[in-house]
């Protein structure tokens, strides 16, 4: 079944008894997608996944990510894909890793409590270098917390949640349109770098609606994993080329390979040799750190003459932009730096952009996570130049909260 779906994700299911109804549905769907429509953040993620060629979803619906599962449950079968509702999040992450090894482009969506359960599976996807995407629409934690309230508490968990050193790729949009774009990018990067890519959303963004016009499919760049060109008996499951990206065969194509969570050699078999273990760990690190220019995306907003910089990600940056507009109106030189890729952290870009800035304000909906990264980069400056704004009561940081701080420090 999976093998069939990997050939073409766009093949419509023609088994329907009434093809007329089916094509009418498709037509409506296409119209709906490409017109300027009112769309939710979660909806944008679902359509982004479809456009990126995702053809397998396994998940356990949870507020505030439910709509992603809901839409894919309807849309995937129509396009020849597979949707499975699993018994829990541990099973969900295992299912998407397995599907990916069989050749599918796979994705799951969850929120904090499910994301915690998925950590072991995420580590397994990383050590076995299996492409997959986990969407985490964050809500206030810890534990079940507040299901319908926003928080940015999983920023560090997205990097360090799984045990052992495992470099992470984590993307973080701030609008409905960008949720669509970064979902496609997350799938592309997972395929290209053979790893589990995490997409973080905020509760407010997942549920928020904005007017969005999705691009035509012709303008969507889709990347798929490199397939091996060697005969099966030459195939190494972890064969590194210059950029530390190796071709990936799927089960059922005639290639034999072993997949294990144990530290392994190039063929995938467990090893206790320190040389092989060291090599494997180095490859996992280098494939991220050697390609940082490809991975990092950062938005610089009104930074040219800024003396005060606001550094923030996700929905909080929308409050920052509103505050900047108000402060600029009063002649205060303030700008925004917003990483779209939060891990790997854009060290060089941030260091360079903060060179001429006197004060950095870091608003975030947690008790201090991103701020430590900024602190690490500007440690040579005095303590007073780094100002936190932190909130964990289920409410957003507002433009006025940020404006007040800007005025205090200017």
């Amino acid at each position, binding site marked *: 079944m999976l093998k069939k779906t990997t050939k073409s994700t766009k093949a419509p299911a023609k088994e329907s008894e009434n093809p007329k109804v089916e094509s009418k549905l498709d037509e409506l769907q296409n119209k709906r997608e490409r017109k300027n*429509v009112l769309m939710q953040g979660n909806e944008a993620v679902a359509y982004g996944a479809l456009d990126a060629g995702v053809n397998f979803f396994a998940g356990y619906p949870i507020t505030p990510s439910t709509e992603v599962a809901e839409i894919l449950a309807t849309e995937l079968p129509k396009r020849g894909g597979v949707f499975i509702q699993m018994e829990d999040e541990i099973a969900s992450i295992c299912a998407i890793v397995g599907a990916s090894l069989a050749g599918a482009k796979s994705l799951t969506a969850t929120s904090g409590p499910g994301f915690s359960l998925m950590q072991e599976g995420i580590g397994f996807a990383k050590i076995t270098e299996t492409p997959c995407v986990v969407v985490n629409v964050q809500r206030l934690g810890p534990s079940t917390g507040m299901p319908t*309230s926003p928080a940015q508490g999983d920023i560090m968990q997205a990097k360090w949640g799984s045990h052992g050193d495992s470099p992470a790729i984590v993307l973080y949009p701030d609008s409905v349109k960008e949720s669509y774009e970064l979902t496609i990018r997350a799938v592309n990067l997972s395929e290209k770098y053979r790893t589990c890519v995490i997409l973080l959303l905020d509760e*407010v963004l997942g549920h928020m609606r904005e*007017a969005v016009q999705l691009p035509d499919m012709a303008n969507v760049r889709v990347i798929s994993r490199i397939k091996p060109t060697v005969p099966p008996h030459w195939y190494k499951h972890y064969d590194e080329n210059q950029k530390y990206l190796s071709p990936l065969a799927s089960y059922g194509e005639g290639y034999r390979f072993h997949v294990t969570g144990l530290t392994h050699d190039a063929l995938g078999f467990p090893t206790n040799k320190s040389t092989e273990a060291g090599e494997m760990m180095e490859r996992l690190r280098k494939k991220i750190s050697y390609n940082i220019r490809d991975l990092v995306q950062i938005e610089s907003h009104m930074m040219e003459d800024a003396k005060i910089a606001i550094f923030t990600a996700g929905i909080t940056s*929308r409050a920052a*932009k*509103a505050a900047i507009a108000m402060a600029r109106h009063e002649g205060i030189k303030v700008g925004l730096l917003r990483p779209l890729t939060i891990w790997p952290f854009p060290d060089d870009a941030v260091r360079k952009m903060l060179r001429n800035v006197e004060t950095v304000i870091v608003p975030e909906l947690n008790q201090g996570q991103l701020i430590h990264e900024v602190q690490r980069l500007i440690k040579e400056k005095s303590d007073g130049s780094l100002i936190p704004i932190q909130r964990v009561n289920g409410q*957003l940081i507002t*433009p*006025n909260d940020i404006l007040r701080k800007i005025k205090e420090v200017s």
Partner: protein
Amino acid sequence: MNYEIRLSGSGGQGLILAGIILARAAVIEKRRVTQTQSYGPESRGGFSRADVIISDEEIFFPEATNFNCLLALTQEACDKYLFDLRETGILIIDTTFVKNLALAAENTFELPFTDIAQEKLGSTITTNILSLAFLVKTTGIVKEESLQQSITETVKAAFLDVNLKAMQLGYDLAANYKK
């Protein structure tokens, strides 16, 4: 300039759906819009609000903080948000549930929307569309045709008639409203 609208009340009154319908009407007019919401985990009862911001420029912060218009369908919602209404803002309250005003707003429109819906339309379930249509006619934030088109696109066919009736009643109430 942003035009900020907050629709507030309790869960089950259909405020988020009203927010979506209003936002979609703005999309029909090719304007910029964001629609956000806040509600508890329960599907009925509890607190609920929907924000709609309509603008011709890019909208940064998606939640309404300083409303041009506040619709309050419960006393609790009215008490909570009245102070964030702009001085010149329009306050629309449902006097079926809102009995006291903590602050006299300049532009206050009061009608027992829930009672009217029960009486004229046979069910309180259309209170959201009734009061939304009243809001649209009173503020003029979107065209009446756009709202009608949006309702038609959003509401299930089986419930379209009663909702269009509610909309028309809302327009009539607004047209004949005497302060």
